[in-house]
């Protein structure tokens, strides 16, 4: 057991015991522990097996940055044990090892498979013989990946909630700088949101003895009115929107300014055996000890390039860890080094670690002077020290991913040995260790300055009032600069047998990068794609800087030229479910929808509407329309009100039909064409009065037609007002020989044939609802289309069904309507027509009035089409043998080549035959011609019919 006595900053509750299992074995923890700290306290040192070589891995960063502690928790893979809180009864399992973590059969790859698995091996091996690829693929897929998803996911108790938040300022990072910036800006009047990925605000303060200051700064931010989001990871910057994932909520934060105080990420050193369990970053060791009161080791060697490692050595020493020796890469000693020496701990300046040895865990560290690593250097003494903990610190790399996603640039800072932010976009700022201002007081002041400047830029403070304050803050920052770090060597490996890892996620070694460069992948982007360095769970946090150094060494390019890879979201791990989430899929439903469901309708999508497809008997419903009456909900039709002195002229310009001659109270069918004379929509136009027209469109074309009308109105500036009534009105079509009788019982209007003729429009009450009634039809029988306020939809529908019940009325849906309209060869725009269809080749020449006074859209094209409609024509056809061809099947020309296509087919019980419409070669577009249809492997032979199959003279319609 490695639990320390109570620590000042510990976050565990020793009075609250939590039990969970790890690979089936019970583990006791305290509330506040992470899975990682609890397992470590219980003696677990190996947490996972690496991706490719299946090498043992242990805790390293304890901050969620590296991949070494990925586990499965309650079936969910990819959980970082070092940051995941323990929960009662959790079932934690290892990843990527079979049969067990202690004995992984795939570790043979590490022993003997190295030569067969160099970087990019999958481009070179497992290719031949090609016939074996399915087997190779299966083996590789089983071997690859981290964790398995269950075949069926259990029902989640949570569903992603999306929250949109606008703010003046978003601060990402809740350490000293971020908290100070947020509080400062909020006090100056800004609406501020702060997001931090940790469970507690304070950043490094929490485990570096600054927990009191952390609490103070957090309280100040809270009191200033900052909205504080913890356990909230910023995923990425998307054109001014920053997505932040918190629990089961995805915050979409749109702020006028973003301020990044994301700190810097401690870097590992590259040396032989640097991935052994027991090799830990200094921050990781300190977190274990100070936050979770877990002793990270008994006997430690420390190798560092900055004061971080020295301070960690002091902190661990204070907690009873024997510090065997400290190797400081820097030549000159610092205050911390002197404190170590005063404590009796040896500090070797200019030394570094070159190797770690051990079977399943670090057992010894090998140190050497840095000079010995230079080419042609004289042999220098090495020191091999027994230890069970090797604390390393390779300096820090600023966490620049999010600001660079926002458009910031980075350049290499040779003095500090890392890539630093250089230029920031106008609405983005940065503070704290991210910009090299990382000392405790320095970070806080850096944040205050950033907050002042942000508030000023937002207009919450007068720049001149704040300039004095800003200057004094700048001075304080400069005075507080800490000791510089040394730049570690790219690879301090001592040349002995063993791997030096640059990338722990993907098992990419220094040698792999050497090989990749040799093969020509000599830029960081190419090297990344070839070796997969920086592509793993850490996304470059642990490896990008070291990889850049290695590439610089191999290519001879300066680091400034090597650069970094492009930062892309997500920066933090996020479940796919958070991004997929609950879809918002707007569905339009007629006001009568509820009744359709109650009547047993099969509901389907038709565009963005939910419509009744049929009521269980499409052929029977179609027959009812012929024999008695049918009622269909056509509320989805587009409906536009066109009003004004220029309304008639406006419509004459838009339609090839003549509209201005339409008398009030009359209806006309209209075909809409575009500039090229192609059919884009169709519908009816009803003149309500001299200056008012009521236009219907297809259901799916409503939006486009409204846009089309609006566009041209804006261009022509006619005195016309357009109003979209599509959703304001319900519409139903009552059709069949009994339609008149039924309608007569629900209205006082005279609906006799003499008083209400075909293509007449009347207004009156239908079942005490005001309605516009039109004698039109799409289904080939006597019909009335009734339009009335949507709020009365169910009322009118029920009234008509009730009135028609003794007459045998049936509701009918889309499918029977398709049968009925096909019998009349009425087109469905977009199904029977396409972008090449014009009124002439679609057999509607009567719709075009080339002689009308008003010029109209597409006139020039239609003038040409009038004499040359095209190579194909739209016709009807019948098939004698009873099989309906597939819609879309090709129509062949004489030579057997596709020359047209079938657009609609149905079997008609009324006509007792298969009917359809098709585009056929013009030479075949006359009655009686035989057309050959190629449908799969079959040939079908249809007979052309250019007239409607049912009631060709329209007598029923006009009755």
């Amino acid at each position, binding site marked *: 057991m490695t639990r320390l006595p109570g620590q000042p900053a510990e976050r565990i509750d020793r009075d609250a015991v939590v039990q969970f299992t790890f690979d089936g074995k019970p583990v006791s923890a305290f509330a506040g522990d992470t899975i990682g700290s609890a397992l470590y306290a219980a003696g677990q040192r190996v947490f996972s097996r690496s991706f490719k070589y299946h090498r043992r891995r242990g805790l390293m960063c304890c901050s969620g940055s590296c991949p070494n502690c990925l586990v499965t928790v309650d079936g969910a893979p990819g959980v970082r044990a070092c940051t995941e809180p323990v929960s009662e009864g959790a079932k934690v399992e290892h990843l990527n090892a079979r049969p067990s973590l202690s004995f992984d059969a795939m570790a043979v790859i590490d022993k003997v498979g190295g030569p067969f698995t160099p970087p990019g091996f999958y481009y070179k091996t497992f290719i031949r013989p090609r016939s074996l690829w399915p087997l190779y693929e299966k083996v590789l897929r089983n071997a690859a990946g981290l964790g398995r998803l269950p075949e069926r996911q259990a029902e989640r108790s949570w569903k992603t909630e999306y929250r949109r938040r606008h703010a003046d300022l978003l601060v990402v990072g809740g350490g000293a700088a971020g908290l100070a910036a947020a509080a400062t800006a909020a006090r100056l009047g800004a609406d501020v949101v702060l997001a931090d990925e940790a469970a507690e605000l304070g950043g490094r303060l929490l485990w570096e003895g600054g927990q009191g200051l952390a609490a103070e700064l957090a309280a100040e931010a809270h009191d200033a009115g900052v909205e504080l989001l913890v356990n909230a990871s910023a995923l990425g910057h998307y054109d001014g929107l920053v997505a932040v994932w918190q629990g089961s909520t995805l915050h979409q934060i749109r702020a006028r300014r973003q301020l990044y105080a994301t700190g810097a990420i401690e870097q590992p050193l590259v040396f032989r055996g640097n991935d052994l369990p027991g090799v830990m970053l200094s921050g990781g060791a300190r977190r274990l000890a100070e936050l979770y009161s877990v002793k990270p080791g008994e006997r430690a060697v420390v190798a560092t390039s900055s004061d971080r490692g020295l301070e960690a050595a002091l902190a661990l020493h204070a907690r009873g860890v024997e510090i065997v020796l400290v190797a400081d890469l820097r030549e000159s000693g610092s205050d911390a080094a002197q404190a170590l020496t005063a404590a009796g701990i040896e500090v070797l300046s200019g030394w570094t670690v070159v190797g770690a040895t051990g079977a399943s865990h670090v057992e010894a560290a090998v140190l050497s002077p840095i000079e010995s690593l230079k080419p042609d250097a004289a042999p220098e003494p090495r020191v091999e020290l027994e230890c069970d903990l090797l604390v390393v610190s390779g300096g820090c790399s600023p966490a620049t991913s999010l600001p660079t996603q926002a458009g910031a640039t980075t350049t290499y800072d040779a003095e500090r040995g890392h890539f630093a932010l250089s230029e920031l976009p106008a609405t983005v700022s940065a503070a704290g260790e991210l910009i090299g201002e990382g000392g405790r007081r320095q970070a806080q002041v850096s944040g205050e300055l950033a907050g002042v400047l942000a508030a000023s830029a937002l207009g919450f403070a007068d720049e001149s009032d704040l300039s004095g304050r800003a200057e004094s803050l700048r001075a304080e920052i400069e005075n507080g600069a800490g000791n510089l770090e040394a730049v570690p060597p790219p690879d301090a490996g001592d040349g002995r047998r063993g791997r030096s890892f640059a990338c722990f996620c993907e098992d990419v070694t220094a040698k792999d990068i050497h090989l990749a460069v040799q093969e020509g992948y000599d830029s960081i982007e190419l090297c990344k794609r070839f070796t997969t360095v920086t592509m793993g769970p850490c996304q470059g946090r642990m490896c990008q800087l070291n990889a850049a150094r290695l590439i610089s060494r191999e290519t001879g390019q300066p680091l400034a030229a090597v650069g970094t890879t492009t930062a892309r979201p997500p920066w933090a791990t996020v479940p796919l479910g958070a991004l997929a989430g609950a879809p918002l899929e707007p569905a339009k439903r007629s006001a009568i929808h509820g009744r359709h469901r109650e009547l047993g309708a099969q509901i389907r999508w038709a565009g963005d509407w939910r419509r009744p497809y049929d009521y269980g008997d499409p052929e029977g419903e179609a027959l009812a329309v012929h024999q008695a009456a049918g009622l269909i909900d056509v509320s989805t039709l587009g409906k536009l009100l066109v009003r004004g002195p220029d309304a008639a002229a406006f419509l004459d310009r838009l339609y090839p039909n003549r509209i201005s001659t339409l008398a009030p109270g009359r209806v006309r069918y209209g075909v809409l064409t575009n500039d090229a004379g192609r059919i884009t929509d169709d519908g009816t136009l009803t003149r309500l009065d001299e200056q008012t027209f009521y236009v219907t469109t297809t259901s799916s074309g409503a939006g486009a037609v409204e846009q089309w009308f609006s566009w041209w109105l804006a261009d022509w500036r006619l005195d016309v007002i357009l109003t979209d009534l599509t959703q304001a009105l319900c519409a139903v079509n009552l059709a069949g020989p009994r339609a008149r009788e039924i309608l007569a019982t629900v209205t006082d209007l005279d609906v006799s044939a003499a008083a209400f003729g075909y293509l007449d429009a009347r207004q009156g009450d239908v079942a005490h609802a005001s309605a516009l009634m039109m004698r039109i039809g799409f289904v080939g029988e006597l019909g009335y289309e009734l*339009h009335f306020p949507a709020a009365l939809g169910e009322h009118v529908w029920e009234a008509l069904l009730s009135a028609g019940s003794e007459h045998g009325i049936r509701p009918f849906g889309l499918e029977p309507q398709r049968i009925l309209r096909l019998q009349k060869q009425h087109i469905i725009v977009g199904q029977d027509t396409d972008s090449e269809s014009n009124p002439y080749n679609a057999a509607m020449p009567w719709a075009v009035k080339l002689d009308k006074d008003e010029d109209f859209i597409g006139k020039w094209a239609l003038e040409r089409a009038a004499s040359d409609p095209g190579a194909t024509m739209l016709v009807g056809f019948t098939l004698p043998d009873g099989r309906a061809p597939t819609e879309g099947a090709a129509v062949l020309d004489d030579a057997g080549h596709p020359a047209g296509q079938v657009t609609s087919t149905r079997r008609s019980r009324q006509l007792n035959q298969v009917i359809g419409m098709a585009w056929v070669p013009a030479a075949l577009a006359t009655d009686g011609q035989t057309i050959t249809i190629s449908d799969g492997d079959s040939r079908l032979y249809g007979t052309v019919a250019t007239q409607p199959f049912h009631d060709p003279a329209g007598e029923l319609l006009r009755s």
Partner: protein
Amino acid sequence: MSSLSFLTPPAGGSSSAAALARSPFERPALRAGGRAQPRDGWQVVVDYGDREHERELLAQTAGFADRSQLRKLELHGEHRAALGLAQLDGDGGWLCPVTPTRALLLGGGASAPDDAVDLTCGYAALQLTGPSANELLARFCAIDVRPTVMPVGAFRPGSVARTPGYVLRTAEDSLLLLVGWATGGYLWDVVMTAATHLNAGPVGAVALAEHEAVTARA
């Protein structure tokens, strides 16, 4: 008879055969336990069986109520309202500018101008009220409704749950949403789902009216 009279639902009558207008929220509201009564020709959900709970929702989290029966007139011609800011007229109607020459008049008792288009049934209307009304909206709408940006009277067009709509702030703690009538059922589902995260819920006309009266006095 105006050529546009067919747009207007009836004002209600005493006849049992009189057409009763129904909101697109009615069915889901009834499934949620709503109790409806005819009022002025409309079927109106007056409560959900526990008015005390509804008062608590309005006071402590958020309640959402059907206001679809609100009269909505589209007016054309130059109007006095500046874009983005609706004006409350003396009859209790909100004149909401859509463009410099087009406005929606919501509610109010004044008689409709002759050339107004009755769009009462063009928009379903939902009132979100309570301290968490802004948060509730934020679950499905990205319009910035912070009081500093959208004070009382502010009127914004935009995407409401990915469908075209409008948001009007009618009070400090209250937002009126307008969406296409046919998307009402969809919007109800969205708001209901969002409300569960915030312990909010539907409220009836009675509780809403009481709350508005108390708020107005305050």
